């Protein structure tokens, strides 16, 4: 089935741990603020569909992709890194190069914690659009806004300072929103978050 919003859907390939949550929320907020739609593997709850199938379906649906490799590091317990994010980046790039039609238009932004760190574990991606964020939501927002800017031709985009100020306001109101909606911070699902961001932007537009 063809996705009518292929051009404006953004696949988010990033960690889902609690420490990363402020950055994840900044990514989602910035995408919607710039007029695009955030998609990620957490949006579907279909136990009959294997995880990789679900990811492939979303990658097929999205022209744009944001891939954060900042958690590709040795785990304290096993000494092994987590390779889910590099794997999903590989799938995205494969869709662009081996796919047909609009799949070839895919564009991606790769994020990491420090500049050139990726060269130590995935040097083959040199030449892609790679930005560092030092685990700071403000830098993530700036990187995404700059990356999306050339893709928006029909409307002005707010600057990164304005988006960051609005994101701070959204974050400050998030606990109260959760309280009113009878949710704890830890219970916010991806669907909840996208609803809150979309509606917050609509009301405070």
């Amino acid at each position, binding site marked *: 089935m063809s996705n009518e919003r292929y051009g404006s859907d953004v696949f988010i390939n990033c*960690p*889902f*741990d*609690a420490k990363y*949550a402020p950055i*994840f929320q900044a990514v989602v907020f910035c995408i919607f603020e710039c007029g695009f739609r955030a998609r990620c593997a*957490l*949006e*579907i*709850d279909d*136990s009959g569909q294997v995880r990789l199938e679900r990811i492939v379906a979303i990658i097929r649906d999205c022209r744009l992709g944001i891939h954060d490799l900042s958690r590709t590091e040795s*785990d304290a*317990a*096993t000494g092994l890194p*987590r390779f889910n994010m590099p794997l999903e980046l590989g799938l995205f790039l494969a869709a662009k190069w081996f796919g047909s039609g609009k799949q070839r238009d895919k564009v991606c932004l790769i994020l990491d914690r420090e500049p050139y760190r990726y060269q130590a574990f995935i040097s083959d991606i040199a030449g892609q659009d790679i930005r560092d964020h030092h685990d700071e939501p403000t830098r993530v927002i700036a990187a995404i806004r700059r990356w999306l800017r050339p893709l928006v031709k029909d409307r002005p985009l707010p600057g990164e300072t304005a988006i960051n100020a609005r994101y701070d306001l959204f974050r400050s*109101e998030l606990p*109260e*929103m959760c309280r*009113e*909606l*009878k*949710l704890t911070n*830890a*219970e*916010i*699902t*991806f*669907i*909840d*978050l996208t*609803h*809150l961001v*979309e*509606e*917050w932007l*609509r*009301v*405070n537009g």
Partner: protein
Amino acid sequence: MSVSKKHSQQRMILSAKGKPKSFSKKAARTVIKTLKVRRAAAVKKHR
């Protein structure tokens, strides 16, 4: 705790798995509008 279990728990933090949609967009909009009104009132009072 095994690593896979730990990662699974971490993923659940933002995951929709096992949870129905917990509120409607309309409910969210109502709450957000209320907060906006409160914020405006607080700014006015501060002035």
